[in-house]
């Protein structure tokens, strides 16, 4: 856990009412054409302070990756704003007096926020050498030229624990863990402040996962990175995160300090998630109480009325099917969206 004094540090990233909706064309004749709307992210509010690591947890399809991508503007948000270091980010045509001009601020901000991808096999261009992959960001921003560039690339390789002599190799000549290190090096090339790590270890062998997790933790300390760490299980996230936000069906249902959320989860969904984490003690594990959720995640095309979780909630009441619960603070730094929590 980061040792930075959290209370004093100012927010680096603020996400306000972020929504990402996808249009799904309904199959049908030319005349009976219609479309459905998939609400991947439905009004997410987040604040990430400088030097902090926020874990974003949820089942597959809950919109956590989409949130990450929308924060970096790799997907255009349908609504809401992302404020990075006090500046609202947008990359489109803005009206300046009588003319429309391209706001290029995002390109500059790109240098300061980067992404680590889940699948190290898909995230590296198979036709490029490692050197070309790591040089690309430097070239895009005209950073360091000529021989300095190669030195910088080799520095990056060393930073992520790879042999700098391998820069002329191709991605297919490395193992999954090594490729993920290259992906991390690429994200670090521009010296970013914020890194969104989108399930960076879930595609790796279990034996490699810890290595990569430790590498990320070390880099975070050394480079003072702010991170959003996306994962589908709490086990991986709880050790690296300062705070954890739990997502369900495009919304944040609970957000709190990492230790607190693991020790005293308030939202029934979070409680189910916590109880799904195995305990590394066979005696305890055998007698452990588990909350097993029934049913499937509802479709984000047709979300349930009221509380999005009511269809699977063991504590469901009448008002849960009618009213949407708001995310409210129940203790300092602990926010929950549930009618039953006081």
């Amino acid at each position: 856990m980061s040792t930075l004094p959290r209370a004093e540090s100012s927010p680096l990233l603020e996400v306000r009412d972020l929504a990402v909706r996808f249009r799904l064309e309904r199959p049908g004749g030319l005349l009976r054409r219609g479309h459905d709307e998939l609400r991947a992210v439905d009004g997410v509010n987040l604040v990430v302070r400088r030097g902090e690591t926020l874990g974003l947890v949820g089942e597959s399809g809950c919109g956590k990756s989409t949130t990450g991508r929308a924060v970096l503007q790799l997907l255009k948000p349908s609504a809401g704003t992302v404020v990075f270091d006090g500046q609202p980010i947008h990359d489109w045509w803005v009206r300046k007096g009588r003319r429309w001009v391209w706001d290029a601020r995002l390109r500059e901000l790109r240098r300061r926020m980067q992404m680590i991808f889940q699948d190290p096999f898909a995230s590296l261009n198979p036709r490029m050498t490692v050197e070309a992959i790591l040089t690309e960001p430097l070239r895009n921003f005209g950073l360091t030229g000529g021989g300095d560039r190669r030195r910088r690339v080799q520095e990056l390789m060393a930073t992520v624990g790879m042999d700098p002599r391998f820069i002329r190799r191709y991605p297919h000549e490395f193992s999954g863990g090594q490729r993920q290190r290259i992906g991390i090096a690429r994200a670090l090339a521009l010296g970013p402040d914020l890194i969104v790590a989108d399930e960076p270890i879930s595609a790796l062998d279990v034996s490699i996962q810890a290595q990569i997790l430790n590498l990320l933790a070390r880099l975070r300390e050394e480079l003072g990175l702010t991170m959003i760490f996306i994962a589908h299980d709490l086990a991986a996230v709880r050790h690296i995160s300062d705070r954890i936000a739990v997502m369900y069906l495009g919304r944040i249902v609970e957000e709190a300090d990492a230790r607190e959320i693991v020790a005293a989860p308030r939202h029934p969904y979070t409680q189910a998630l916590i109880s799904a984490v195995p305990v590394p003690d066979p005696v305890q594990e055998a007698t452990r109480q588990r909350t097993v959720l029934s049913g499937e995640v509802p479709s984000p095309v047709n979300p349930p009325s009221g509380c999005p979780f009511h269809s699977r909630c063991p504590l469901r009441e009448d008002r849960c099917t009618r009213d949407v619960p708001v995310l409210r603070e129940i203790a300092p730094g602990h926010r929950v969206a549930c009618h039953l929590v006081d």
Partner: protein
Amino acid sequence: MTLPERSPSEPAAGQATDLVVGTSLWADAWKRLRRNRMAVASSGLILLLAVACLVGPPLIAATWGYDEQTQDLAYGPQPPSWEHPFGTDFYGRDLLVRVLSGGRVSLTVGFLAALVAATIGTVYGAVSSYAGGLVDAVMMRAVDVLYALPYMFLVIILVTILGKSLLLVFLALGAVGWLLTARVVRGQVMSLKQQDFVLAAKSLGTPGRDIVFRHLIPNTLGPVIVTFTLTVPSMILQEAFLSFLGLGVQAPRASLGALINDGANQMLVFWWTLVFPGSVMAIMLFALNFLGDGVRDALDPRMRR
């Protein structure tokens, strides 16, 4: 192939000089192609034909003093002999020289037309697909419209309007032949642009032009090269067809198609005027097709059997 990971604690060499050079996917494909005996033999044959077509006519002109237009009217058509291995045609012109210079025309037209087609098609398909949305829809409908027109009809119109020079023949062929490549590349890019490395490039601030030319197109080149090697023979065939119709290379110059046309008219009397150009053409097409198959197998080892 993978080496053991170095632990992060190991000291980093400031500037390592002894770089480990990797094998690119191209080098890998090249290795596989060289192991394919049929493909190697075919490319050898094509090379041999190309060299013969290039060097043959001037060499014969220098040694025996005649070229593909020199007539020996006193003799007229002669069957193959030691003096004229392929015989002579109706006007007493040596058929070997005519086949060689005709082969040069056919190979040039085939390769250049295929190159024009591949270049236009690749860029068009990649840009269309990357732009997506309305731009893509409009660009691909244009392809559909061109596709719906009878292909040869279009070439014939182009050749008639533009004139009958050799340059225009391959331009006309290339200008119509890119449709298939455009569709192939568009399909490839459609799936490629969903991949994380394209997203990564975007997040690294790579401009769209670089994403298309440095990330997307290099990854589509496999199918493009395959389409290319299979387009060359079809272009040669089409040039032959145009010449057959009298729209391609004009007499007294020769192309394989024109020679076959002449030969076909006289095949019952002067059989060699059809057999020799026809055989050379057939061998050329076989070799090109086998090479194309070999390249496809080399680039995509999973497709093999």
